[in-house]
């Protein structure tokens, strides 16, 4: 990609997530893509059935992404929101519509390799129609100086008989100040799977994530998995929220957080609520260290406790 005009540092940071950068460079690979360098649109490619429109505003862009009815595409739609500056404000307003009977994966990358006072905000609205399979994967890299402030908010409506999979990964580099809020509204017979992974690595890393699912339709199902680690003074707070508001809906919140080193803090606040007598909502959370049996199993293979813990953290935070 040396012939591209896109900042090499951003491309390099995505390789750390095992993302093939050719997939989303305009003119390379296949699939639709929207490429942003700070607040300028540097590339935009559509494919049949996918409408991509971007409009630059003072501190960012408004992007409309529409998956036309019946469109089923294997190649992900790539969205790259990179900033190769230390400071500045980037605001993204995506409006994403998947019409009925569509199947698509959106792969979003937010990479800020030089961040040192940088602010990134996102305010996203998703509308997923009926009978869709929609996956949204977002990977973040905020550099190594804990210098980013990142605050995405997403409201997501998932229509009847649709499957929505959300994956958010913030495991490489140092996150800085992160505050994420996701609200997902699940209609009849829909299935929601949301997985969040984050790793706070020093005292300047503070991560707060609120992932909420509102089971509004009969027989809607959901699982929220929140996995985090905090070391050397890092702080992680995860709210996993599920409401059972319809008959026969079923939701579960699972939170696993590992604390490494003194001064680090992991907190989990599962909040579950059922207002329909035929609904079922549950949660489980474990914080602190890994189960002793897991450590024993790995130590019986000759690993020290420290090595075993490192292996288990890598496994827990492995991106899918």
């Amino acid at each position: 990609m040396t012939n591209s005009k896109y900042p090499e540092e951003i491309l390099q940071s995505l390789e750390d997530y095992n993302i093939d950068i050719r997939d989303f460079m305009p003119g390379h690979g296949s699939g639709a893509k929207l490429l942003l360098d700070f607040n300028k649109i540097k590339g935009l490619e559509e494919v049949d059935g996918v409408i991509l429109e971007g409009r630059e505003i003072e501190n960012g862009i408004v992007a409309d992404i529409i998956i036309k009815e019946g469109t089923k595409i294997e190649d992900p739609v790539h969205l790259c929101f990179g900033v190769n500056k230390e400071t500045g404000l980037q605001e993204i307003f995506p409006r994403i519509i998947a019409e009925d009977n569509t199947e698509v994966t959106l792969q979003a990358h937010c990479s800020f390799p030089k961040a040192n006072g940088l602010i990134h905000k996102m305010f996203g609205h998703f509308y997923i129609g009926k009978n869709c399979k929609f996956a949204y994967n977002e990977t973040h890299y905020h550099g190594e100086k804990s210098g980013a402030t990142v605050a995405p908010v997403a409201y997501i409506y998932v229509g009847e008989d649709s499957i929505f999979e959300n994956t958010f990964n913030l495991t490489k580099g140092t996150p800085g100040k992160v505050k994420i809020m996701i609200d997902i509204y699940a209609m009849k017979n829909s299935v929601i799977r949301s997985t969040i992974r984050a790793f706070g690595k020093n005292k300047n890393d503070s991560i707060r994530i609120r992932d909420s699912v509102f089971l509004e339709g009969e027989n809607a199902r959901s699982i929220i998995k929140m996995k985090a680690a905090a070391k050397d003074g890092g702080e992680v707070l995860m709210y996993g929220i599920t409401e059972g508001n319809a008959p026969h809906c079923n939701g579960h919140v699972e939170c696993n957080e590992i604390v490494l080193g003194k001064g680090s803090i992991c907190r989990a606040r599962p909040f579950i609520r059922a207002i329909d007598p035929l609904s079922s909502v549950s949660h489980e959370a474990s914080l602190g260290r890994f189960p002793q049996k897991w450590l024993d199993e790995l130590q019986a293979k000759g690993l020290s406790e420290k090595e075993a813990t490192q292996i288990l953290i890598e496994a827990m935070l492995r991106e899918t």
Partner: protein
Amino acid sequence: MLLELKDIVIPTLDKKRIILDQTSFGIKEGSIHAIIGPNGSGKSTLAYTIMGLGNYKLSQGKIIFDGIDITNLDITERAKLGITLAWQEPARIEGLSIPKYISLGIKDQSNVNEKILEALQIVNLEPEKYMNRYIDESLSGGERKRIELAAAIAMRPRLILLDEPDSGLDMIVIEDFLNIFNKIKELNMTILLITHREDIGMVADYGTLIWRGQHLLTDTFPKVMVKYCAKAGLKEFCKRTLFDENRECPAFDSDYIDRIFREEGID
């Protein structure tokens, strides 16, 4: 002897009760040695203590491995000397790939993929079906046990402690596991097999009977089994199992069995 237990006493963690009392026996290198006894008799505790798990400490005695006193060594140090344990119910560590898990104990990481493939083949798992999978809920109990065994084999330890490898498996699978134990033995690894099933122990050369926290007998496995059956009052089962036409006859006849049962007050 590869492993010698010298007059060991294992108390509970709060030291208020004895789990295994005054036990001494040895395990010969290259053998399969079964520890049998009813549920709750202290068999798994013995395996965990030999492995060096933190909650299992001796209040008395010594554990000698290949001439080295390992009593005060921790689990990692013992593993590095060549002892490992395959758990009765190994954990499902989501996110850890099967090849990575098997490779963890391989000291020499050169040609590591070949070593992983070989270990999978020894436990009768088709490598192409498992090299891209993870230690997660998609694995059946039997598959997970085989992977645990493969990880132990890949280490090439001198002593493998197998904690009830037969639990939760059907008879067809168990026959396969017995063949795997013999393959491990052919690779010059010694097996300490913990089981409460006497028929599983028939694969063993030697045995030790643990009964309610007491070491009762260490001898050739058939003799240990007779003693176990006599304690449990299972005479017909004992004869049927020992003189099964598919098995090699033990070096004693049914008169020996009758005598041992009489010693226990059973005609």
